[in-house]
């Protein structure tokens, strides 16, 4: 016997799934400025230490001061990829939309840091090695990481259905994350075979503690910056995704009012 009925109430599980972005949106809006200010403050402190406290390097002279952005950027670019893959995995397993949005919001910042690491590495290389680019294991895997970022961003942008874009992006992020260590070790292997260990970015162990302090503070600043920007981007993505819900309508109405007042 066929029965065709209209369900009276939504299941609680469904409600929960719809609700998560709604609660995160205002939270992200409240948190982001704090992270942004922390980033700005730490950058000022870090750069002060880097430029005015840390001594001149006895081998490289002043050029080494690029380290205060190069190393944090390189760390962030790798770490953000792993965080992206983590959110992708969470999204695939738990089926939560917010996780996919998080991983997509992180990608452009990760790519930016990746490019910064490459650029500063190359610029640093010219006075140190006499050439802008060597096919050093780190630089090369950094370059490939940039391509992985581009692939992820291009794929998630090219697919129009957001559900499919989320999941397809998650798979490529995970495949990439499995490959990042493989790429790194293979490039290192290849590098040692072809050039020997003559050219390496490995820094002297006797790094002055003020140098290290400046670098670490800059790394934390990069962290704060990445979080702030990702949160802001998440907000825009959430609005876009949830546009057919009631609460986005309310948010938009409030935005329209403030815009009107500003004019």
């Amino acid at each position, binding site marked *: 016997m066929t029965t065709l009925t*209209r369900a009276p*109430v*939504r299941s609680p599980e469904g409600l929960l799934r719809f609700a998560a972005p709604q609660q995160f949106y205002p939270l992200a809006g409240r948190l982001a400025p704090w992270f942004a200010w922390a980033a700005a403050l730490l950058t000022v402190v870090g750069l002060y230490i880097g*430029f*005015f*406290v*840390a*001594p*001149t390097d006895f081998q490289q*002279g*002043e*050029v080494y*001061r*690029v380290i205060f*952005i*190069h190393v944090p*950027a390189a760390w962030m670019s790798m770490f953000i990829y792993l965080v992206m893959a983590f959110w992708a995995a969470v999204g695939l397993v738990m089926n939560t939309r917010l996780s996919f949005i998080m991983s997509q919001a992180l990608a*452009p*910042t990760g790519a*930016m840091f990746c*490019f*910064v690491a490459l*650029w*500063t590495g190359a*610029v*640093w290389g*010219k*006075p140190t090695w006499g050439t802008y680019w060597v096919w050093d294991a780190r630089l090369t895997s950094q370059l490939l990481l940039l391509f992985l970022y581009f692939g992820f961003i291009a794929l998630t942008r090219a697919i129009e259905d957001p559900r499919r874009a989320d999941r397809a992006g998650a798979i490529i992020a995970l495949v990439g994350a499995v490959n990042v260590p493989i790429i790194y070790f293979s490039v290192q292997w290849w590098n040692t075979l072809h050039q020997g260990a003559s050219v390496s970015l490995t820094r002297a162990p006797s790094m002055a503690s003020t140098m290290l302090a400046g670098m670490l503070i800059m790394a934390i600043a990069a962290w704060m*910056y990445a979080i702030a*920007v990702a949160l*802001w*981007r998440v*907000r*825009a993505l959430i*609005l*876009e995704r949830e*546009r057919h819900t*009631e609460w*986005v*309508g309310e948010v*938009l109405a409030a*935005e*329209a009012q403030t815009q009107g007042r500003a004019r």
Partner: protein
Amino acid sequence: MQWESWSAFWQMGGAAPYVWGSYGVTLALIVAELVLVIRRRKDTVNRLLRWRRALGKDVGGSQARMESVE
């Protein structure tokens, strides 16, 4: 203090183009990213507001029906 004068600071012991080139590009990229993020948010809000207004009457109607369902 590491520097004898401000001009010594800007010259960076002869490595000025490399050091300031790195910092300049990084700063430019960060500013560009921030601008893009802020503009993206504005664009999204404006586009969605336009979208709501365009659908205005329809949305209102179906909204009412959805509420009557629940």
